[in-house]
């Protein structure tokens, strides 16, 4: 469980958070790009809009001036009589102003002349005093009208200047003022008529020249961007209409536009992102969590039917539906697999139980109470069988043939495990029967009979090596026959253990009609006979070395004065010490007889 919690911690945040971070970064980048792009675009747009706006403002002023039929006379008059004129600035149509009074007076004196439509001829025919009155009235009216234009277009300055072809000065003829731009002669104030400003900037000079010669021109730099447009020639000078616009206000417009557009884009993206996240949540994350919950549930209690019905109920569509079907299939596979494993395990347990029972049965078949003849003082023997697997193909056997004869058998079936053990059991029973059926038979005859019997039921071509000896307890004479088995090792009284190179016949069960030899040897009183299977000399250590006959004989000699049990223990220990951690590969079977003989004779 601890592991699972750790995993849980690692993915804290999950898909939504990861995607959200991606969206956030994307929104930021796109927002930033939009901002700079918009700024660039809107600056251009605003600039060209501004240029045409300022042009139309200038044009409107020009139209306003041109509407007076006597406009040329008026411009000249204003210029030439700037100092004498009694001007009321910024009267702005208020009732009771000086200009209204003047207009009323003029109309009363010259009812035939309409001030707005007075022609140059009509005016020049008037007295000098009335001409001045007329010029003052129209000047005031014009100021009022351009003040209005200035207010409507929210421009900074609107004026008319005169200059010559050096463009080195500006003579202010008329200009617009309002609350934001007061009359005065300081910089950024609205100059009265007759105010002259020196022009040093080449840019401004160029601008005026371009405007005078061709068309309107917008100065490209400066705090105020000035637009000039040609009005007329006045007293040998050029009259230009100037419109000034504060660039900081222009940039404000640009920025406002940019911010507005950027905010629109960002808000759009955020809404889109939120929508995407919502869709991911609904179509991916939510089903995924459900599937996850069911997987965990299955992991915990292996209830496949519940998980299947849970997942089917969800009726998931798209890949999530496929995933949940896959999970169901996986759970089915796991269930099948578990069932199989359980069956195999049960089968294994059954075989293991049967094998251990078989192992006990096999061991029980062999005489295993030692000493076997506690009442006898003339003979003692000890034997052991250690199969490499649960059951083995080796066996030892001994039994009384009659009161004075003991049969000794040691045998080794080819192969190992269950097949060998089955064959060994048959051989053991057949051998005992073959010996005991007639106590007068010779070992060779017994072997031949045994071989025929084994061959008769041996389609699998198993074979067994077997040594049989019949010991006469009275005399110590051993009549023996060897069917392909290892040489016995004999220690005569007073001597040491020596390998008995006896006459070998062919293995039992190998071929029908084989003839066997037999031979005899004497066991003197207090002599010992050691019988074994090839598992002993062929015990192998980790370096693949064999225990070998030399080590076996040496071990026997070292322990030659021990009881049979002591001798077997000594060999067992020596083999174990030699093989160390290497796996016991072959069955290990030994039998040792101590012929004490008749102590009374």
């Amino acid at each position, binding site marked *: 469980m601890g592991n699972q919690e750790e995993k849980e911690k690692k993915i804290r945040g999950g898909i939504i958070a990861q995607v959200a971070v991606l969206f956030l970064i994307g929104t930021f980048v796109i927002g930033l790009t939009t901002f700079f792009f918009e700024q660039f675009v809107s600056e251009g747009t605003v600039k060209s809009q501004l240029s045409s706006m300022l042009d139309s403002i200038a044009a409107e002023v020009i139209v306003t001036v041109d509407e007076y039929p006597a406009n040329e006379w008026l411009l000249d008059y204003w210029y030439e009589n700037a100092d004498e004129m009694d001007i009321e600035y910024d009267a702005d149509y208020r009732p009771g102003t000086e200009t209204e009074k003047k207009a009323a007076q003029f109309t009363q004196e010259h009812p035939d002349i309409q001030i707005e439509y007075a022609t140059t001829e009509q005016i020049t025919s008037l007295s000098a005093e009335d001409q001045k009155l007329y010029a003052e009235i129209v000047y005031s009216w014009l100021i009022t009208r351009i003040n209005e234009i200035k207010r409507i277009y929210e421009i900074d300055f609107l004026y008319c200047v005169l200059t010559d072809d050096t463009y080195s000065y500006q003579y202010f003829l008329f200009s617009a003022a309002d609350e934001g731009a007061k009359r005065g002669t300081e910089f950024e104030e609205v100059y009265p008529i007759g105010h002259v400003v020196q022009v040093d900037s080449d840019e401004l000079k160029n601008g005026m020249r371009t405007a005078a010669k061709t068309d309107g021109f917008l100065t490209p730099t400066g705090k105020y961007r000035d637009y000039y447009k040609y009005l007329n020639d006045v007293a040998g000078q050029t009259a230009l209409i100037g419109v000034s616009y504060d660039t900081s206000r222009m940039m404000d417009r640009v920025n406002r536009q940019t911010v507005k557009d950027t905010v629109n884009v960002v808000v759009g993206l955020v809404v889109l992102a939120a929508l995407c996240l919502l869709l991911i949540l609904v179509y991916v994350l939510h089903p995924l969590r459900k599937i996850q919950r069911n997987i965990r549930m299955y992991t915990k209690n292996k209830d496949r039917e519940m998980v299947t019905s849970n997942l089917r109920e969800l009726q998931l569509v798209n890949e999530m539906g496929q995933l949940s079907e896959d999970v169901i299939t996986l759970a089915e596979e796991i269930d099948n697999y578990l069932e199989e494993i359980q069956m195999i395990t049960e089968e294994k347990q059954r075989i293991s139980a049967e094998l251990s029972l078989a192992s006990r049965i096999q061991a029980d078949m062999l005489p295993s109470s030692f000493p076997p003849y506690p009442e006898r003082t003339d003979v003692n023997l000890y034997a052991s069988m250690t199969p490499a697997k649960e059951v083995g193909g080796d066996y030892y056997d001994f039994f009384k043939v009659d009161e004075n004869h003991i049969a000794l058998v040691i045998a080794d079936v080819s192969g190992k495990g269950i097949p060998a053990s089955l064959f060994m059991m048959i051989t053991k029973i057949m051998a005992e029967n073959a010996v005991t059926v007639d106590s007068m038979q010779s070992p060779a005859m017994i072997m031949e009979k045994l071989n025929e019997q084994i061959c008769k039921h041996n389609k699998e071509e198993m074979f067994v*090596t077997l040594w049989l000896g019949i010991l006469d307890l009275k005399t110590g004479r051993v009549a023996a026959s060897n069917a392909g088995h*290892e040489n016995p090792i004999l220690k005569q009284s007073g001597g040491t253990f020596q390998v008995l190179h006896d006459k070998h016949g*062919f293995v039992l069960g190998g071929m029908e009609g084989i003839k066997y030899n037999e031979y005899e040897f004497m066991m003197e009183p207090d002599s010992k006979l050691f019988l074994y299977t090839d598992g002993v000399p062929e015990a192998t250590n980790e370096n693949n070395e064999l225990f070998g006959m030399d080590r076996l004989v040496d071990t026997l000699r070292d322990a030659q004065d021990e009881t049979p049990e002591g001798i077997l223990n000594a060999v067992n220990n020596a083999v174990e010490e030699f093989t160390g951690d290497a796996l016991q590969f072959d069955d290990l079977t030994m039998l040792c007889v101590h012929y004490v003989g008749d102590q009374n004779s």
Partner: protein
Amino acid sequence: MTINKEIQDKTMTLKLAGRLDTTTSPELEEELKASLDGIEDLRMDFSELEYISSAGLRILLAAQKTMNKQGTMSITGVNDTIMEIFEITGFSDILTIK
């Protein structure tokens, strides 16, 4: 263990190398089962064979029995260890060892 097989007409030569024991003898058994048909002279070269167990002996015995019916079988190059095993088990009596 490796098995080197050569068939010439009705003579088959098997050259064995390594150990012929419980784990390797099925290989030889398969080989013999597959190609012993029609062979009249089976020659086994043991000069590179190190060891033979009872499972190997079983295969040799089966081969010998088959060859008794259809021809001859002989073994060459038997080392001392294997010769001792042949002698102890009496196989030296039924095999033709050259």
